[in-house]
């Protein structure tokens, strides 16, 4: 009686309708169903991103303004402190992180859109775990953001960074990780927020400080104490520094320049290895995803 078959039930035998009826037996759930759920939510993010060409262009706009307008404008002023390195070369890894940051935030905003336009309901009533929907969203956000990152990576020669397959692979992996964390963070916020304006205002309020504190646009050496403390608490720090290391490993730098521009991250005097830094990002990503899934369950 409690079967999921669609065989005609009841007393009256139902004649097969004309035109070869398509009998569908929906299988019970399980990890396969959850995987299919993750995949289709991910695919939808890609389709929607690809369809929105304007968004691809606009999310590139701001990082490029920072790199070429701000970087170009300040280059002369900053030349005393960059040990002969072009300021734009220094800022480039930060801008790689920035492009990902903005795109991932925008992806997370789609949760709020989906709610406003009702599509969230279609997902919430489906017989899949809420976790699949959150994971699909985060993976989708990570993918499109990494794609934006690739476009910015193509600009490397313009800031005196040579192309290198290893660098592209390293940076891309870090960008995926960063984008996943940011999308999870965005989804975590978006579940609670019912209106687009409120979400955008919150993101405006959070994104710029997180970006500035991360050291994307200035070196971590010789910072005032309070700024150094805030920097260590900013999750972005642990993505920006490895990206900068991956880029700087490919260019010729004097030891003095490297020490000034890429001092690395220290915790109470301990030099944190790059691997541990990446693990910090993984840790943040896991916590944020877990919170997002937990919140989504009661949404």
């Amino acid at each position, binding site marked *: *009686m409690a079967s999921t078959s669609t065989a005609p039930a*009841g007393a009256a035998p139902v004649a097969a*309708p004309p035109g070869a009826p398509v009998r569908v037996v929906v299988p019970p759930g399980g990890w396969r169903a959850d995987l299919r759920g993750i995949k289709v939510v991910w695919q939808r993010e890609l389709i929607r991103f690809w369809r929105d060409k304007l968004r691809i262009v606009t999310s590139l706009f701001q990082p490029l303004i920072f790199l070429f307008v701000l970087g170009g404008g300040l280059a002369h002023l900053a030349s005393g402190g960059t040990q002969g390195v072009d300021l734009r070369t220094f800022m480039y890894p930060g801008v790689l992180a920035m492009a990902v940051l903005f795109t991932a935030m925008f992806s997370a905003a789609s949760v709020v859109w989906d709610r406003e336009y009702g599509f969230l309901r*279609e997902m919430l*009533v489906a*017989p899949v775990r809420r976790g699949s929907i959150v994971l699909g969203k985060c993976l989708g956000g990570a993918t499109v953001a990494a794609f934006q990152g690739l476009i910015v990576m193509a600009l490397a020669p313009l800031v005196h960074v040579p192309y290198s397959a290893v660098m592209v692979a390293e940076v891309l992996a870090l960008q995926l990780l960063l984008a996943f964390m940011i999308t999870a963070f965005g989804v975590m916020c978006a579940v609670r927020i019912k209106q687009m304006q409120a979400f955008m205002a919150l993101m405006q309020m959070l994104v710029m400080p997180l970006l500035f504190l991360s050291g994307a646009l200035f070196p971590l050496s010789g910072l005032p104490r309070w700024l150094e403390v805030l920097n260590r608490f900013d999750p972005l720090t642990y993505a920006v520094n490895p990206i900068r290391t991956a880029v700087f490993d490919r260019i010729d730098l004097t030891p003095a320049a490297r020490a000034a521009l890429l001092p690395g991250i220290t915790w109470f005097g301990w030099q944190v290895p790059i691997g541990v830094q990446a693990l910090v990002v993984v840790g943040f990503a896991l916590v944020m995803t877990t919170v997002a899934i937990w919140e989504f369950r009661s949404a």
Partner: protein
Amino acid sequence: MSELAVEVRDLVKRFGDVEAVRGIDLDVPAGETFGFLGPNGAGKSTTISMLCTLLRPDGGSALVAGHDVVAERDEVRRSIGLVFQEPTLDMYLTAQQNLRFHAELYGVPKAVVPARMQLVMEMVGLWERRSSLVSTYSGGMKRRLEIARGLLHAPRVLFLDEPTVGLDPQTRASIWSYIETLKEQEDITIFLTTHYMDEAEHCDRIAIIDQGKIIALDTPEALKASVGKDRVQLQVDDADAAIEALRERFDLDATIAEGHVTVAVPAGEAFVPRLFAELGVPIRGVSVARPSLDDVFMSYTGTTIRDAEARGADPMLAMMRGRH
């Protein structure tokens, strides 16, 4: 014995102090088209939300397609199709992409997806437009697409919450013809809510719900028969004289409704010859109408659906109702 698609026992839902659903019992056999009729705020949507596992009941039990809506939530979700009042489509995807998303989320076996997709889209006449973005669809087309999507995973029970609300009369009629086709082609139970009296007549059985309780449950014909009286309307030059004459000669209380002298009598057609013979006031025309569900609602609640909605919309009155 036929299987029950929906089995509800003493279902209760409270929002704070207000009891939105106050102990509903309901049996819907498989294959039936069942209508939930009542004014806005009567508890229709709350009940349907509980049956669809979107709201947790505060009391009682409900089985849908043989599964408990609380304990076997995912099984219920797999066996039902849902069409909400508000649109839940992705406007930036094509119709086909919307359906594919649904098929994946509901785990429809990959081998049958294309054929099934064509079947449901042809059923609602949208197969030709399958590659268009949903944002280019009209309101009626969107609703039809939602119905097609709700059917994609071959649910055993299809819930339609106000399927024609906000649509023009012509589109409403076409939605109903699709639902009729659907009943012929699929082995399915349809559970719908409406507050349009004329639409409720498409159902095999109707429950009339008011203030969170079912006040009548039967076939549309039986409900109308229980009212028992036809509505006779007279076109006369002197309405006052006609009303006066009806009272004196037939002992009937007539009123003026929709501009005509209106009177309710048990057998309308048989009354007309007597009317012409005995009234003594010139008559220009007569119409006889069978009782509608409007009359049914009025006879059970003492108010029309429209007045009941006006009452429900008044926050003061709603508060007072909630208090006792």
